């Protein structure tokens, strides 16, 4: 754990892509077993933050710690304990789902019995039964997303980093994932996930962090964010639009109509 008991910590993270700002002096702390939602417009820094937390992006300055480990100094150790689903998962398309998960399980060091039990349980839970012997290249986007999710949670990670995990999932699978995140949180698994679907964020997250231009714009429970925005009783969408300073939707429509 981090020195203040948090499972995930970012301190003054800054990342530049050339002259473009990815993250700007961003600090964040996520407690053990907490489900943290990252909200923000496109390009606000959500994916960059998640990639920084697993060591896929080297910050220009600042540091990140996961389970007390410095991500830059010990990326392999961090990856052993973390499950990650990228925004657009890349899978080995010519493997079957079973073969892919078998490979991930071996990389993760699962025993044969554990591997067998986990793979069959996940395939059943996420409705891939009967399809697990087909090559992934023939799967729909949603099915590929399910395989990526299975790969991320196969080894019972202590921290889950999910970048738009519900992309392309059917309602039943999306519900399964939501319940899964809740269930994992009860077992002490920390989850940080980004989403554009505000209802889902409110439903499953303990706390929300709104990012804008690579900075933390606001942070708190859904209710605390409503209070900050001065919109008690409003939907999270209105709160989000007000906090991010998005101009009136009517104005935007008017501009579009020319």
């Amino acid at each position: 754990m981090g020195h203040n008991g948090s499972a995930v910590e970012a301190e003054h993270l800054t990342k530049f892509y050339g002259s473009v700002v990815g993250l700007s002096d961003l600090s964040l702390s996520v407690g053990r077993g907490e489900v943290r939602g990252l909200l923000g417009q496109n390009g606000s820094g959500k994916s960059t933050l998640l990639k920084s937390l697993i060591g896929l992006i080297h910050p220009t300055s600042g540091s990140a710690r996961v389970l007390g480990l410095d991500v830059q100094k010990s990326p392999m150790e961090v990856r052993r304990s973390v499950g990650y689903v990228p925004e657009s998962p890349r899978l080995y398309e010519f493997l079957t789902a079973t073969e892919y998960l078998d490979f991930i399980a071996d990389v993760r060091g699962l025993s044969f019995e554990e591997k067998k039990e986990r793979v069959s349980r996940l395939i059943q839970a996420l409705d891939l039964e009967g399809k697990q012997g087909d090559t992934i290249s023939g799967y729909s986007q949603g099915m590929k997303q399910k395989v990526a999710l299975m790969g991320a949670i196969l080894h019972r990670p202590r921290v889950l980093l999910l970048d738009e995990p519900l992309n392309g999932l059917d309602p039943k699978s999306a519900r399964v994932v939501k319940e899964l995140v809740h269930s994992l949180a009860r077992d002490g698994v920390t989850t940080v996930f980004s989403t554009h679907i505000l209802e889902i964020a409110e439903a499953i997250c303990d706390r929300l962090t709104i990012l804008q231009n690579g900075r933390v714009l606001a942070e708190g429970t859904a209710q605390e964010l409503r209070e900050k925005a001065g919109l008690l009783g409003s939907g999270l969408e209105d709160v989000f639009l007000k906090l991010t300073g998005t101009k009136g939707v009517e104005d935007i429509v008017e501009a579009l109509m020319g």
Partner: protein
Amino acid sequence: MRASVLLKFAKVLLVSRLRGTRRSFVTNAITSRPIIIGLISVALFVMGLGLGWATISILISASTTASAMGQIVFTVFGGIPIFLIGFFFSMGLLWELNASSESETTDAINWLPISPSEYVLASTLSTSYTYSPLVAIALGYALPIGVLTGYTGAFILLVGVSLIAMFTGSVGVEILRSLLARASSAFSKVGGNAMVVMRILGVVVILVFTQALFSGFLVVRIISTLVGDIAATVAVPVFWPTLSITSLLGSDLLAAGVYSLLSLGFFFLLAYIAFALRSRFWITAPPSLHFSGSSSLSGASKLRWFGLSNLSIALVRREFRSATRRKEVVRLMAIPLILPVMVLFPVVFSPAPSSTSAPPVSVNPLLLAGPLLFGVGLGALFLGLTSIGQEGGRLWNIGSLPVGEAMIVKSKLMFASIIAMIGLILGLALAVVVFHMSIFDAFIFSGLGLTVVLAESSLGITVGSRYADFSEGPRPRFVTIAGSIIGSVLGIILMSVMGVVFVLMLPFSLLLFGGSTSLALIESLPFLLAGMIGLIFSRIGYRFAIGPVRGILTEIPN
């Protein structure tokens, strides 16, 4: 380094490769058992044994002298290692020419506890094992020759250096893959005309340079001009495995040992470079280079000078922009540029001159133009064949716009032709500079080349639209195997027809212009007729392509 993970990962890469290559006619049940490659290797080893035994039996029965026998052993044993290095590298290179970014990216595993060095080793093992049957048959062939001629010791060394050669060629491909992945990620999202050219040239330079390095031609030429022929061979690392064998056959144990160690050292050096590059480019870097304002809107295009409508220009512009941002398509575009260079490559760099004051090489322009046009024609054909399939589902995005199928075919034709013509002009420029081809000859050849390019592009689009392969994956084909075969055969027939017309017209032209000293003038009539044939085929191909494209736009295949 975990051996079990390494082997598992190598198996995953191997299975992906096998299924990506042969998925249309080999079932998953077979490709999921890599042991089959081992069994094929055993069978080929036995076959090699038989061939080697037969060879040596024939030589003995023919009362071959001991020195002649020694020369045969020298050639066979010395040839195997250098051949293996070139073979494994070339096979990897050919794979890379068709591989998509999916096959190179480390995004599929870089979030797992797998290190870059494990990735490189697993990939090297996978490449080596995939093509290992060739090593088996080579060593099977060499075994009876070595044992029955008393060179058992040399055979044992041959086994060792052959393995080193195999891994050297395979790990060389890993360096190339890292460089290509980096070149792709650096350029993929940056716009502007300058970047389009840079992307294509970047890929061409990397492929030509690495091919030159591993073929040895260029290196031998450079070193020989500095220090002489023998030293040149000694200084080229890819020759070291061969030199270790030939030294042992020449009873020079010390040299054999030194070259064996140097071969091993060269492999480790390449492996180190591959590790370093893969670590450096482990994560796909978002582009940070901005050579031009990619967000700017297009102004009036100079293509209007050729009478193209705004719609046609928009489609051609889209072809270039989308194609040059997809690495797999950039490589296809590189083919018409690489083929002419490759055709001229051995002539330019081999044999090494005996002195730096050697006169410039002079070759009959026709001997240069034939292979050059053939290479460019094949490149244009290949671009045409893949032009529809590489669009994938994006084709229906265009179909939803008020764009007719004829317009789409025209834009594809223009795209393939422009790229192929750049290749032709580069090849001709090389011929003018290096072989002193006259500018007028080059001009005539470029005219004929244009008709070859148009005819082959049209034919390619016609066949490519009928046999389009829209499946995405680690190694997208863009055209079915049947389509590739039919297209290649028809393309070669078409060029042969043009060639035959040219040859048949040559005597008539000689009669007409026999008094002229200008080769170009004598050849102008055959060129004209061959060119007309090309234009007729081009028109026919264009007409035949429209129907299948209409069919694709109206019915979305799975």
